[in-house]
């Protein structure tokens, strides 16, 4: 009986010692992931595979970088087209912007060539970082659009000014005929105020933003462009209001004359639908 008990205890002790040892042995075998190169051909094959993988990665990165540059070049092409299609941008502003766009295009094309020729990931990384330095989206595109809008709004205010002058003369002639044109005169004053406010807001923007360069981002370019955007939108609102006033004046005058001539004997003709 004692012998049996002694054998059991020894067996348990041996089991307690053997199980962790086996477990550690298995763990070591599992964590050893390095291939065991035992002969030369296998080692060369592995090395080639790693090199291929790196070259493939480099090509993919280059392709993505060149695609980004192409998108930037397309954006520059659209800016060039916007300038070409604008009927109201001044010649000086168009020339200056086209110069900026030409320099950015040349810089991006040169960068694309250097990226294609890059040999190492480090060299490629350094070149790719330069794509963002052109700040096409942040500076060149918004400033181009703002200059075009500014010049166009200035043209519109000039046209509205001539419109209000013509309306003023027409209103005076209606008054001579004998109509009461007080409402038309009130609308005309409002129209003139809106027009001059639109000009005051829109005119300086082109000059404020056209000199901004990529190196001006974010300060001061970000603030100047934000202010320009707000002024141009406000100017657009004023110009729309001025035009609405002009249309209202025409409607008012038309309502006075619907189908009938005016009798000089009646000098107190009131508007029918003001």
């Amino acid at each position: 009986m004692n012998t049996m008990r002694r054998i059991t205890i020894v067996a348990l002790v041996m089991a307690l010692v053997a199980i962790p040892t086996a477990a550690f042995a298995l763990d070591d075998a599992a964590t050893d992931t390095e291939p065991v190169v035992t002969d030369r051909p296998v080692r060369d094959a592995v090395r080639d595979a790693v090199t291929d993988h790196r070259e493939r990665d480099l090509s993919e990165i280059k392709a993505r970088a060149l695609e980004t540059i192409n998108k930037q070049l397309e954006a520059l092409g659209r800016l060039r087209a916007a300038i070409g299609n604008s009927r109201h941008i001044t010649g000086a502003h168009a020339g200056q912007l086209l110069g900026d766009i030409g320099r950015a295009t040349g810089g991006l094309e040169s960068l694309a060539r250097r990226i294609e020729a890059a040999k190492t990931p480090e060299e490629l990384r350094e070149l790719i970082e330069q794509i963002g330095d052109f700040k096409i989206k942040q500076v060149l595109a918004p400033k181009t659009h703002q200059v075009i809008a500014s010049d166009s709004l200035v043209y519109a205010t000039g046209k509205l000014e001539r419109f209000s002058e013509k309306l003023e003369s027409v209103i005076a002639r209606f008054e001579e005929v004998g109509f009461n044109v007080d409402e038309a005169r009130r609308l005309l004053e409002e129209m003139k105020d809106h027009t001059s406010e639109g000009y005051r807001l829109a005119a300086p923007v082109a000059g404020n933003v056209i000199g901004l360069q990529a190196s001006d981002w974010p300060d001061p370019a970000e603030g100047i462009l934000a202010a320009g955007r707000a002024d141009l939108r406000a100017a657009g609102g004023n110009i729309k209001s001025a035009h609405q006033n002009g249309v209202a004046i025409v409607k008012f005058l038309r309502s006075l004359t619907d189908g009938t001539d005016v009798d000089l004997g009646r000098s107190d003709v009131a508007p029918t639908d003001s």
Partner: protein
Amino acid sequence: MVVHVRPKGIEMNSLIVRADVKRLLVTLLVACLVLTACSAQPTTEQAETDATVAETEVAADLSEDPDSITTTTGVPGSTTSQPATQQSTSTPTTTTTAIAPPDLEEELSEFEDLEALLEELDDLLADL
């Protein structure tokens, strides 16, 4: 007995004088008739002068009268006032003439493209 004998030469002379006097009287009569006829109708110059005087007087009357005649000619809006030249009525008459206001379509035709310009501006402002 005394006999007066009138010599023949003297008788002839008196006959001649009588004929001259008769001719003179006829001439004077004709002259008088001519003068009478002339004084009955004024000359053309006199008539013109009279008309001018009359016009001036009427114009002076009308300028003092606020109800003077006003006529309109030509383009709407351009009115011209002129005094009446008729002398048939003793008092000035007031007439009212219809005047057409300016043609808005014609006057404002050059601004028809404003609508399109505003649409263009809307697009430009959307690009900002």
